[in-house]
């Protein structure tokens, strides 16, 4: 299975890459290189049809959040959208847009052998502090296919 990643142009790319480069974050530079090499795609999300836009407006979230919702609605050929934001996860779930947490992405990549189990474990430990207790413990057992 091949892995492809798409970033929403205005929100996520601006946050992760553009501002990251300005501030000198090394991962922003890596993302920039991956975009230049076309390993990551940057997509622009256009406004959608009124019923969808009306509901999105009612949720009253930020423009960067709206961009993700629009992109997911327009893209038909993606597997998951990675998000750690609680409210956004719930909204994406309600739209059946297949949100997953970053730990779940790591587990999926390990299961598909895109990364080794050891690397998956290292990545989960590296992001442990971001999550409430329980999430990484659970993820480590999922990685080992115990749960």
């Amino acid at each position: 299975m091949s892995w492809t990643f798409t970033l929403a142009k205005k929100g996520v790319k601006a946050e992760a890459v553009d501002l990251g480069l300005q501030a000198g974050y090394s991962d922003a530079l890596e993302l920039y290189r991956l975009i230049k090499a076309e390993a990551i795609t940057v997509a622009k999300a256009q406004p959608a049809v009124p019923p969808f836009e009306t509901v999105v407006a009612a949720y009253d979230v930020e423009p960067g959040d709206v961009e993700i919702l629009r992109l997911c609605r327009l893209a038909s050929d993606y597997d998951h959208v990675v998000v750690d934001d609680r409210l956004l996860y719930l909204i994406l779930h309600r739209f059946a847009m297949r949100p997953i947490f970053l730990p779940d992405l790591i587990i999926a990549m390990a299961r598909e052998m895109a990364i080794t189990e050891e690397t998956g474990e290292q990545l989960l430990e590296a992001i442990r502090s971001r999550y409430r207790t329980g999430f990484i413990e659970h993820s480590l057992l999922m990685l080992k296919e115990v749960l």
Partner: protein
Amino acid sequence: MAVEIAIPVDEKVSKYIQVLVETERKSHSDVVRALLEEGYKGEIEKLYTSYSRGEITLRRMARRLGLNYRELYQLLANKNLPL
């Protein structure tokens, strides 16, 4: 980067500041700075509570604090506040 701000304050606030200056034996600047920082911490806690309840997204929290997304992630990490 530190910024200097000059603001007029209400007489009641001014008297409160004076009490703190005298009891804590600090300068007016230090007292006002401490009060502002307490207020800022309070705002972070309030917004984080809203986020935790699913009332706002992280991007809204970032905007309200005048931070970009990365800066907010860093702030949450520094304060051991999980996503």
